[in-house]
């Protein structure tokens, strides 16, 4: 495992190799060599299973981080490949030629984050949202509460109760609370 990671970090300029816990390691790689690295991991290193593909929105740092979770059945270890892509023009090469199931994840990423995967099947079609005309809703600048108040109306008589105050004052008034 360590020799493989050393070799990969030289060949593919892999950085930030962190062993999160035994059986899960994460590493970061540049966008232009990411597909080649995934192909190498799948074909030569035994990471044949793509568990999932998702994105983390690092709005403070100004980039998305795509996460590809791979699994090796022989050594029973997982490897998470992180790829940083630009937030404004979010685009990444499609890996549906490596794993066929990636097309579903890429459809979701396109609809909910706005990341384009040129060539991925049916990536422009509606996936979960039909007729959506706002920004992709999983981006952190999308205010879901504000959209909700604009589009849907509350039922009258809905209130909120702070559980801690409610318990201290009404259910257990003689207990003294947590002073």
């Amino acid at each position: 495992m360590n020799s493989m990671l050393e070799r990969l970090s030289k060949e593919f300029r892999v950085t930030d190799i962190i062993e999160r816990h035994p059986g899960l390691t994460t590493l970061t790689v540049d966008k232009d060599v990411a597909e080649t690295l995934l192909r190498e991991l799948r074909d030569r290193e035994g990471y044949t299973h793509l568990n999932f593909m998702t994105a983390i929105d690092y709005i403070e740092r100004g980039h998305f981080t795509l996460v590809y979770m791979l699994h090796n059945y022989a050594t029973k270890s997982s490897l998470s490949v992180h790829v940083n892509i630009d937030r404004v023009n979010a685009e990444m090469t499609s890996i549906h030629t490596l794993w066929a199931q990636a097309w579903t994840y890429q459809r979701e990423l396109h609809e909910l984050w706005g990341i384009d995967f040129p060539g991925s099947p049916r990536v422009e079609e509606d996936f979960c949202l039909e007729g959506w005309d706002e920004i992709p809703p999983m981006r952190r600048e999308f205010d879901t509460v504000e959209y909700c108040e604009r589009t849907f109306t509350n039922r009258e008589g809905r209130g909120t109760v702070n559980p801690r105050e409610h318990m201290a004052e009404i259910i257990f008034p003689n207990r003294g609370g947590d002073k």
Partner: protein
Amino acid sequence: MIKSLSTDATLANAGLSAEEQDLFSNARPTAYEPYSIKAVEDFANWCRANSLWILAFGTGCGAIELRPLMTARFDANRFGVAGRPTPRQSSVFIIGGYSSVKTLKRIVRSYEQMQGPKFVIALGICPVNGGMYWDSYNTIKRLDQYIPVDLYITGCMPRPEVLVAGALELKKMIKEGRCDGANRYVENFDWYKANQKKVIKKWDMPDYNW
């Protein structure tokens, strides 16, 4: 094909050719009149109450509670509840839990395709006030703005015993003649349709799916 209904120029499929008009509803929904003789109406309500055929369309997480309800332990079939595959053959639509906007379009279409006296049971807290998805951009908060609801069963999710109690309550309401959701839909059709179109932005179906 129903040709006897009057055409209504305000519906979206008003200017279509004769062949195409047959494919769409060319009229607004009509309310059903109760029987004039009270004894007949009471008998009809008794029949409707004892034969609650539900549409087997699990719209949300409430469907998971319908599965044990149909098995031997709770046995909804002794109350006349049976699952039917199409809206044409069912009279009760159980909305199980949250409704996303995508599901709401299908719920509206299925509800409008049901016939005659039809009843809606809303399971869970999500159709009441949004429930735990109150701040979600994709789920509606009040189901009775989009289709008329006859009975709410709150919980997250309500257990099968509660569903049985709800079925008995619905039977009581039907026998008393209080379940007029279908007629309410007809009377407030424009209001319901405006609410639906406000959230269902990609409206690629007829205004009234009969």
